[in-house]
């Protein structure tokens, strides 16, 4: 069980936070380009799922799985997007993303007047609280190899 990394995008599509706990492969491009590619992927997946769905969908896209990792997606009503890459067997990641939003983002970014909304999150307290929460999750078991 592992958690690889976490992306937070604002409603305008720019990455306001990125952190990695474990990553064995770089995307082969600059961080900036990678964020744009990731947002493009999520944006297209959302419209793809909406069109392909046989019946009306409510939440739309939830997650996808490849042979090596699973990408989990959660979007709030305000358009904030949280994306977490985990190993393929992890479950309930959506709940954890909701928890991150509720207990860390709202508490330490929205309620912090020093944090400008829609700007990159530089708050140290957010960073440490997030790290603490993620490390306490049952699916977090990163071994350094």
């Amino acid at each position, binding site marked *: 069980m592992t958690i690889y*990394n976490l992306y937070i995008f604002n409603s305008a599509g720019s990455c306001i936070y990125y952190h990695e706990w474990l990553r*064995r492969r770089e995307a082969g491009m600059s961080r900036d380009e990678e964020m744009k590619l990731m947002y493009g992927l999520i944006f297209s997946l959302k419209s793809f799922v909406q069109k392909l769905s*046989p019946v009306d*969908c409510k*939440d739309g896209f939830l997650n*996808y799985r*490849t042979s*090596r*990792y699973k990408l989990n997606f959660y979007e709030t009503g305000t358009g904030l997007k949280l994306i977490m890459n985990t190993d393929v067997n992890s479950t309930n990641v959506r709940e954890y993303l909701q928890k991150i939003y509720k207990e860390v983002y709202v508490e330490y970014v929205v309620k912090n007047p020093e944090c400008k909304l829609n700007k990159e999150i530089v708050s140290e307290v957010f960073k440490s609280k997030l790290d603490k929460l993620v490390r306490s999750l049952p699916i977090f078991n990163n071994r350094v190899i």
Partner: protein
Amino acid sequence: MAAISVYIISKAGGMIYQYDHNPITIEYEKTFSFPLDLVLEFVNNRLTVTFGQMDNIKVGHIILSVNGIPLSGRKLTDNRDVMEVLKSEENYPISIKFGRPKLGTNEKIVLASTFHSLFAIASQLSPEPHCSGIEVLEADTFKLYCYQTITGTKFMVVADFKQSGIESLLKKIHELYADYALKNPFYALEMPIRCEQFDVNLQAVLEQVEKTGMSNI
């Protein structure tokens, strides 16, 4: 039991086969009084509900007919402009039929090639080395399974999220493709599959899945 759709995508990203097994149609008719409490807008030349969900009418549904007269583009088939009809009070009470827009062949081709690129990007953004593309994609209403053969052809199945064992169905479709499409001397590779035997056998397999589940494929 929900519909199962099968897509086959060539290694260049073109859709070479598509079949919907028992597609679901969502249609709903309702009588309205003046003024209309829905916000309607033209999206892709179809009159779409953009705000004001009620009963079974959801955002994204399109208007199919007004008072039983079908709608094509901006005009009703009796040549009246649909917006004029909906704006004038003397036409009320009015009965409007809504439905979920169906995918046309062109839209399916677009979706198939979109998936082809999403598949490639997913493997590029992987945090682990030697990663494949999307194998299973989950949404709240369906699950999409994809199986890529070593020659690059992709088999994609859209199924109900409760349906299990789709992986074996994908292998079976691959087998049918090898047996009935590739062995057909009139079939040109990478081109749309028009082989009657393939259609017949695929439908038989899907029929069997629907009746008895995945176990005896």
